[in-house]
């Protein structure tokens, strides 16, 4: 389980998060919603390791993550996507996805330079896995295309495929529905629920609240850095405080 315990964060005088707790279990989709400035992306950045924690702990099972840096958390099985996709433009879709397999690449620098057998094994295994994941998320048509020629939706799905190459236990999605058409959001839902059914714990930070309430098992709502409500989609969507925060202005 991935457990966030009374975590706080401030930037100078600005309080971004104030004693927020949530937990993420394998095989569930946990939605994280809130208006702009509520701290949801900040929280995601803290879980993945981009911002240090000012107070509280983030735990992966028994291990405290607070001092682990971003690559270490990735190697422990926490993958993420970004609000603005971070892809390698000149490389193909397949190469971009294979990057996610770094964790499993056995060959070191010198072994690679001298083309030792481990290099061929890595390439073969990671290429097969990447292809399957890419086809699975829906990018079969674009495997050899340069990443800088991709449409917005394709970029988002590619990032998910890359994240999956980490064989993650948890996947943190940073507003993956941003800029997607309704059909594409449908597809996104299909992919995310498939991941959930395979046992991955998913944190879904999103603005599209309908989408969140539709596919999430549990939802946490934030406002101005504080936890407002936590519970099932039904409970959260009907909570008066949540309604006030979203509709009251």
């Amino acid at each position, binding site marked *: 389980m991935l457990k966030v315990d009374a975590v706080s964060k401030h*930037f100078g005088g600005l309080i971004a998060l104030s004693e927020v707790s949530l937990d993420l279990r394998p095989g569930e989709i946990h939605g994280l919603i809130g208006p702009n400035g509520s701290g949801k992306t900040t929280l995601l*950045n803290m879980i993945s390791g*981009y*911002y240090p924690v000012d107070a509280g702990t983030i735990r992966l099972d028994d291990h405290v993550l607070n001092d682990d840096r971003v690559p270490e958390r990735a190697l422990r099985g926490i993958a993420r996507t*970004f609000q603005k996709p971070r892809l390698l433009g000149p490389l193909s879709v397949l190469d971009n996805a294979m990057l996610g397999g770094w964790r499993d690449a056995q060959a070191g620098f010198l072994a690679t330079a001298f083309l030792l057998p481990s290099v061929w094994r890595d390439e073969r295994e990671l290429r097969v896995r990447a292809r399957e994941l890419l086809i699975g998320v829906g990018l079969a048509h674009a495997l050899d295309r340069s990443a800088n020629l991709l449409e917005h939706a394709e970029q988002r799905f590619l990032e998910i495929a890359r994240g999956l190459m980490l064989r993650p236990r948890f996947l943190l999605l940073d507003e993956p529905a941003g800029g997607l058409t309704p059909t594409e959001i449908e597809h996104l839902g299909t992919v995310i629920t498939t991941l959930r059914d395979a046992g991955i714990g998913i944190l879904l930070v999103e603005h599209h609240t309908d989408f969140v309430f539709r596919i999430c098992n549990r939802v946490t709502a934030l406002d101005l850095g504080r936890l407002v409500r936590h519970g099932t989609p039904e409970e959260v969507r009907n909570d008066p405080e949540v309604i006030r925060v979203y509709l009251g202005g």
Partner: protein
Amino acid sequence: MLTVIVYGLAIGAIYAATALVYNVMYSTSKVLSVTTGHIPMLGGVFGAYFIAGLGLPILVGLAGAIAVGVLFNLLTEIVAVRRVLARSDEHLWLLSTLAVATMISQVMALWWGTEPKPFPRLIPQEFAQGIGDQKYWLPVLAVAVCAGSLELFYRRTMYGKLFIATSEDAFAARARGINTDRVRALSYMLSGALGGLAGFAAGQLTFAYFALGFALTLNGFIAIAVGGLGSNLGAVIGGLALGMMSSFATYLFGGEYQQTVAIGILILVLVIKPEGLFGSKQVRPV
């Protein structure tokens, strides 16, 4: 011994002035230009050319040196910075300013020659003055004028406030209607003037020498790294400190260790306190 100190202050002053130029350019463009050290170099070379070469009066030579600084830096902004900033690749301005620096360096080497040439006397003064010689005091005076006028500019004038607004948050500044492109061009012109002035003032110390360009780019950078990027106080203190330490290193170990010691200081600071004495730590963006 006193000569060592005075020399250190003087050479430190030119380093400090270069560091100030770095700061002004960085504040509005977030660019550290490789051409920075070439501005004082041009000030010195053209000062010597106008006065000793063309026989023009000293004040005209001064105005000319400043004008060259302004023009060169404006040209740098237009050619190497403006178009490049529009692209997303951060490293491109390093390449473009490096290219411009190489070109101007070579042009000077071809036109002015590769040997350092003497810079004319600016104030009537006997040559055997020792520590009272103007070649030591003019640079110190120049950097004081530069630093002082920058402070006045930022605090008292509207343009100064525009510069500060742009440097703190260019996006917000644009949203408020500030033409950040023009502010940037003006800041490059201002820093070009300061650099030209400083180079002119230091001419008698450094001689008019094309190789000064890259040397000042490096040493001015060491000064700003030690003092802290973004801090004018840091630029002055960093520059003077560097000048003093270089001077003492030369006195103790000989001239062949001058750069080595300076760079040793740089490495030490970068390892221990990379943001410099007065700099601020950067927040990592995602």
